[in-house]
């Protein structure tokens, strides 16, 4: 069989006329095909953070487990005061975990992270929410154990020895972490917490004499500051570089 050369082929093809489709028809075809284009799976941020914390930040889970074990050990084996134990130990897992929350910024990754689908603000806030929520569950668990197996926990004492120190120390550490490196902020906050805890354990009567209203005020103030800090993080105030 003799093959036609290019010129012959071109001449032969030129005998045929093919109508070019209208713009409208092209648009219709694209719109129809759109239904068949596979959609990109959306991975939810919280699921991502949970997985990341599970895989990367073993420190967070470990500190919470150690907290529970140490809390139960101090109270049930060591005969320690449950309120002072709560005062000293409850905020520790969150304070230590803040180092991981701000790790991206502290290790110079922020420039890169700002260009990612999940922004550093979203990531920090969702990590804080996950960490806070899990730690709260651990706290409630420990308080329930104390309540059931030792003495009845008084709400007013819980406010003085757990809620207020917990909120104040976390809001202080978070503020320091926003402004400075978390690796410095966390030990400073823990040192302040321990100094206060030791002082209060020595002067329990003076501490007990402080009116409940004062603690309610401190609680509200800490809550307000935490709200401001969340706003600061959302707006990116934790960036080290200036724009």
């Amino acid at each position, binding site marked *: 069989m003799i093959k036609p050369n290019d010129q012959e082929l071109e001449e032969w093809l030129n005998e045929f006329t093919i109508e070019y489709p209208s713009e409208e028809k092209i648009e219709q075809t694209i719109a129809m095909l759109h239904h068949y284009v596979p959609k990109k*799976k*959306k*991975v939810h941020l919280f699921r*991502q953070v949970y*997985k*990341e914390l599970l895989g*990367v930040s073993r420190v967070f889970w470990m500190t919470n487990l150690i907290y529970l074990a140490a809390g139960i050990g101090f109270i049930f084996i060591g005969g320690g005061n449950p309120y002072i134990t709560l005062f000293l130990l409850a905020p520790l897992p969150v304070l230590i975990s803040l180092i991981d929350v701000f*790790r991206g910024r502290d*290790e*110079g*990754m*922020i*420039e*890169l*992270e*700002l*260009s*990612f*689908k*999940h*922004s550093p603000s979203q*990531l920090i806030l969702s990590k804080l929410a996950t960490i806070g929520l899990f730690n709260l569950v651990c706290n409630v668990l420990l308080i329930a154990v104390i309540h059931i197996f030792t003495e009845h926990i008084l709400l007013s004492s819980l406010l003085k020895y757990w809620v207020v120190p917990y909120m104040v120390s976390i809001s202080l550490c978070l503020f320091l972490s926003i402004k400075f490196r978390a690796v410095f902020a966390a030990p400073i906050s823990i040192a302040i917490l321990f100094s206060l805890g030791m002082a209060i354990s020595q002067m329990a009567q003076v501490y007990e004499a402080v009116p409940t209203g004062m603690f309610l005020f401190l609680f509200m103030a800490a809550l307000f500051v935490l709200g401001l800090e969340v706003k600061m993080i959302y707006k990116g105030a934790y960036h080290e570089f200036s*724009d």
Partner: protein
Amino acid sequence: MNLAIEHVTKKYGNHHAIDDISCEFSNGVYGILGANGSGKTTLMRMLATVTTPTAGIIRVNGKNILSLGDDYRDMIGYLPQHIGLYKNFTADKFLHYIAALKGLSKKEAALKIEELLDLVNLMDVRKKKVGTFSGGMKQRIGIAQALLNDPKILIVDEPTAGLDPKERIRFRNLLSSISGERIVLLSTHIVSDIEFIAKEVLILKNGRLLHKRNPQELLHEIAGKVWLVTTAESEIPRYQDMFKVGNIVRSESRVELRIISDDRPSLAAILTTPNLEDLYLYFFEEDFDAGPVKV
């Protein structure tokens, strides 16, 4: 894909880092050429949404990138000039972490990481900690992370800094090969990075866009202004005082100077074909480092 910068200005106090720039990009490699402080990095950072313009809008397919938010960030890959890395992570773990932040599923990430580690030639060291990597290896892992989400817009700021010549060629070829279906914006002050791969070159100076044209058009601008002069070595200072002198090539007792000048620098001067290095010298004389004398 169309990316448009419309009257964008970025001010730091009273200083205009970027001053009323407008231009458009479609698929292909764009080289952004400028001396240090010309505004290249600021422009790249705005395109990567790391910082926002003081005035003006950046649009992708007609939509404001700031309104698109994470939908826009989902379509970009960014390699900053100075990349921070988690030093205790292995290359593999680092890329998995970045993939998670970019919203890739574990399965997608595993496949992509395998492909990219091979592409940037880091497969053998995937289990080694990033902290032990050389500058070039860190740069290559930076390139890999930028490509993880298969970006439609790739923004790379001085990507070849720290790469050896072989790696630079490899990187240029890589950019060239992936640019068919995406916009690649490459800022550099090394002209050879973009000489053969850029569809268009943007020349930035003091925050202003001087030109955005294809390399041939730009070179046409300085045609008839690049001269070769063979002279005695003792004459070099005199020529350097009077003209913009690029390459100096020494051969036995004479030297050959590459001079950029509107007028013939000497009777013996011969016109030569300009290249992008000459163009750079033409626009950024004060920042030009001719490099070592070639023998």
